[in-house]
């Protein structure tokens, strides 16, 4: 399969602490790739490097999209999103005071802004802004439907229940029309029924059948709950203490001794806590 993201010897140091040490892996196009590992394994740090919130100390990150190779590690934060990488956050970061619909329109800022003639035309009521806005609302509606939030479209995002907020955040990320969707612990805090529904949604997003007119989208997710990951991932990368210890299909990972040792040795308690939550 063609790669969507190639990570080469990614290293991130904070002062004397090396959070990620020469990690290399490839995420395939049209697949769900999961990065797992016990707490403190460096998952979130790596994630923040990929999505541009940290600048890696060493190594390279290359996005293969539309026949081009984009070096993500050289781009400024907002340019990474424009290159086709969208993300969600571990602690949901919605625009709480804006409605669900508005959240999804903000995500389409770039497209809409271009159609307004960068603000000036729109103030004067010129240009094809009306049509562009209708299209944007259409796309937002499709994603609200895909996430089962169409009834709450005009409610402020901050008033939605937690599970709905997580889905809305995914919908918002998808409204940027990304090539790669990065999810930071998407199942954290969800009940088993919501987790199953999330798995369904993610598979639908991968295959491009989640919402009307949506293109297939590769997914990279991090999670420390093995149970969630095994069910939906096509490919799993395991980190421990900042280094990659395994890389393969769910079945291969399940049988890997190093992974079992890492989880039994350190991650055991966390797992119980999480499945109880």
């Amino acid at each position, binding site marked *: 399969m063609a790669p969507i993201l190639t990570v080469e010897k990614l290293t991130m140091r904070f002062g004397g602490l090396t959070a990620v040490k020469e990690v290399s892996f490839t995420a395939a196009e049209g697949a769900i790739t999961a990065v797992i590992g016990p707490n403190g394994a460096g998952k979130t740090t790596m994630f923040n490097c990929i*999505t*541009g*919130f940290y600048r890696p100390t060493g190594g390279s990150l290359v996005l293969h999209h539309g026949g081009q190779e984009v070096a993500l590690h050289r781009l400024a*934060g*907002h*340019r*990474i*999103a*424009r290159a086709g990488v*969208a*993300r969600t*956050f571990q602690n949901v*970061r*919605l*625009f*709480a*005071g*804006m*409605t669900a*619909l*508005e*959240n999804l*329109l*903000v*995500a*389409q*800022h*770039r497209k*809409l*802004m271009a159609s*307004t003639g960068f*603000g000036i035309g*729109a*103030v004067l009521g010129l240009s094809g*802004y009306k049509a562009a*806005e209708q299209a944007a*609302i259409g796309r937002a*509606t499709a994603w609200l439907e895909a996430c089962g939030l*169409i009834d709450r*479209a*005009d*409610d*402020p995002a*901050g*008033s939605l229940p937690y599970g709905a907020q997580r889905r809305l955040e995914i919908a*918002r*990320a998808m409204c*940027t029309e990304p090539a790669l969707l990065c999810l930071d612990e998407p199942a954290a805090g969800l009940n088993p029924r919501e987790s199953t529904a999330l798995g369904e949604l993610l598979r639908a997003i991968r295959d491009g059948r989640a919402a009307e007119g949506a293109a297939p989208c590769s997914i990279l997710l991090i999670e420390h709950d093995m149970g969630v990951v095994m069910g939906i991932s096509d490919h799993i990368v395991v980190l421990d203490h900042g280094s990659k210890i395994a890389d393969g299909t769910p079945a291969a990972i399940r049988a890997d001794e190093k992974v079992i040792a890492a989880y039994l040795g350190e991650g055991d308690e966390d797992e119980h806590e999480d499945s109880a939550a």
Partner: protein
Amino acid sequence: MSLAHPRRPVLGAALKDAGLAALIAAGLFLPMVGLRTDVGPTGALFLRTRWTDVLLLVAIVFAGRFLIRLWQEWRAERHGPSLQKRLAGPMLRLGRFVAPALLLFALLLPLIPGIGRYELDLGILVLTYVMLGWGLNIVVGLAGLLDLGYVAFYAVGAYSYALLAQYFGLSFWICLPLAGLLAAFWGILLGFPVLRLRGDYLAIVTLGFGEIIRLVLLNWVSLTGGPNGISGIPRPSFFGLAFTAGGGPGSFADFFGLEPSPTHRVVFLYYLILALALLTNWVTLRLRRQPLGRAWEAMREDEIACRSLGINITTTKLTAFALGAMFGGFAGAFFATRQAFISPESFTFIESAIILAIVVLGGLGSQLGVAIAALVLIGGFEVFRDLQEWRMLVFGAAMVLIMIWKPRGLVGSRTPTVALSEKRTISAAMVAEGRG
């Protein structure tokens, strides 16, 4: 609390509380009010005692605290929603009529019989602050960037017009857009270094910028006239028709065959500032429903999430700064032409504080709230003109009290910019106020 309390302990507790308050008041007022430093005949200071004043103040504090406590007890004992909650429904319905009613009143004010020069001047003053409030609302209310130096752009606008008119003889109508552009330019210039700053730090840096601009205006005597300011700034004309007192040929009165009257110019200035203020409002309201305005509000809610959606924070912040500054510049040019005289004294920190107070007291992001706050604060300030030196004291106390009463301002809720079915206002508790 809901259990019926016997009357007596409540009264006793209130008395004790009031006594304590009186004791503290005595400590506060005894030296500061009771002992007044005066300059004696020899030029040296001596102390004049004013014990009765202290006694009076302490008695007021005692009675005030006592009554407040009783009222609080009385309110706590009563069941049912508070007055504020019960009024919320009718107020909301009333609110829909307030904006059109205010607009109509503003449009017709000069025509109302009995409205003289003084009332019109007051109207101009209030509208100037409404405009400044609306301009700052873009920066603070929508984009969530705390700006304590907004007066700097007001000053840039005023001095731009004054200097351009003085050195190049340009007319008001040419200078007005220039003043706005120059102010916007300064807005961007000052905006660049502060992009990374957040919250209180941003507030302090903008305060610093405001003061630097004022100090430069004060000390660059060869250009700005220093503390003496610039006088003889040309008045605006009505499409080339001057407002001259004599009503000679080519004047406004002559052209329309009217009796020359100084009121013409005041009425003209009134409509001019009304038009400028409404322009500010129109642009803001329109932008709010555009991607740019939505990006501002999203930035106020969560800057990091904005970045993850590909929104360029730098340009988004700068546009807010520039636009806010531009309207400040317009208002400044208007101020200069109305006063015909400007000096650095008009652009002190307290002006910035008042404009910010108008925005916050009105309710961040609410155009109507800002207009009402400007009317209440500036209008009220004029109404209490007889209080003289006490006026500012009352003004400051009002700021504190309104904040305690309504921390989110008079209109704290937010109206969505777009809706699938029906727009419902979003309560203030949801809306973030920005950290930048």
